[in-house]
């Protein structure tokens, strides 16, 4: 089983995280930002993994720090759980529709951190979905690639609704990650 536990304390954010890449489980996620909890839950659900995360926040901490620290912790956990990366599919790709929106996610578990975050002016970085927005989504993905060593391309093919667009990114990320992290050869769907 590829699993790991991470404890991380930095910038006023204290994170406990458990990840199992090989078994679907209950995903208990509490970050202090409701919409971000929802995003990490749909990521874990579509990745078919078990992901538990809890945070203790000191009173001065802001959303930027929470999202960045969680991105770093998730990236570390993924990298550790993947281990030597033997026999993984390595590449993953997903076009993820959500009503009027279409997001495209491509992953290479390459050891080389790289993020392309091309929203093609469809996703306004400042427009809020709950206490979350496109800028925070980018912050999360950038922290994640840097600490996991994953090459990740996220594109918004088109879309209108902010909630749909951000959710399509996280779902597409989940599906593409599942393909990339899968062990052994499989028929492509």
């Amino acid at each position, binding site marked *: 089983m590829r699993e790991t536990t991470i404890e991380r304390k930095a910038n006023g954010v204290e994170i406990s995280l458990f990840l199992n890449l090989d078994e679907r489980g209950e995903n208990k996620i509490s970050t202090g930002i409701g919409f971000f909890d929802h995003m990490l839950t749909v990521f874990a659900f*579509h990745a078919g993994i078990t992901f538990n995360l809890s945070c203790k926040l000191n009173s001065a901490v802001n959303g930027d720090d929470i999202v960045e620290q969680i991105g770093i912790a998730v990236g570390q956990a993924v990298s550790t759980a993947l281990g030597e990366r033997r026999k993984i599919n390595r590449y993953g790709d*997903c076009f*993820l*529709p*959500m*009503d*009027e929106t*279409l997001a495209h996610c491509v992953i290479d578990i390459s050891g080389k951190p790289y993020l392309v975050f091309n929203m093609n002016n469809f996703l306004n970085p400042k427009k809020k979905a709950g206490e979350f927005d496109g800028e925070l989504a980018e912050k999360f993905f950038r922290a994640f690639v840097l600490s996991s060593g994953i090459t990740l391309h996220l594109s918004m093919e088109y879309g209108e609704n902010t909630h749909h667009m951000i959710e399509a990114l996280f779902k597409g990320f989940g599906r593409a990650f599942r393909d990339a992290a899968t062990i052994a050869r499989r028929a492509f*769907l």
Partner: protein
Amino acid sequence: MRESEIERKTKETEIKLFINLDKRGDNEISTGIDFFDHLLKNFAFHAGITLNLSCKGDLEVDGHHSIEDTGIALGQAVKNALGERRGINRYGNCFFPVDESLTHCVIDISGRPYLRFCMDVSDIEVGNFDGELVEEFFRAFVSHSGITLHLLLKHGDDSRHMIESVFNSFGVAFRNAAAITEGNFLPTSKGVF
């Protein structure tokens, strides 16, 4: 076996449709519009399903009612046959070329009807098939199946190739989305479709 039978009769059309999502079949299809029969056979072939369909419609008016009502019946049959949707892959994606034409089809068996239809094939005529009705067909299908469907014709010149690539891509993407890939698991984080 995920299968369904629909009989639908109105003053405009009389449709009998049988679908089996888990078994390839002969696909006996007769709507009175030859090119539409051909497109539906291609769809069923690439979806790897059985689709038997007869539609007796008011073709003396035009093909509109026959094609739209076939879309309604197919949508109803797909929805019934999918049932609880346990274990399905849910998402499907296909780039399908036919010679110089290429269509991109993306599906989410979401429970939410949505059609994004990006092409202009409305001026095309093949026999008694009117290209305007392609969108009508897919809109009726998504409305009654509760499926999110995006169809984008990326490029193409030949009328038949373009429309065939649309239906073929729909078949492959549908096959991927409807495939059972995770046992009894219900693939929605909401807990219900």
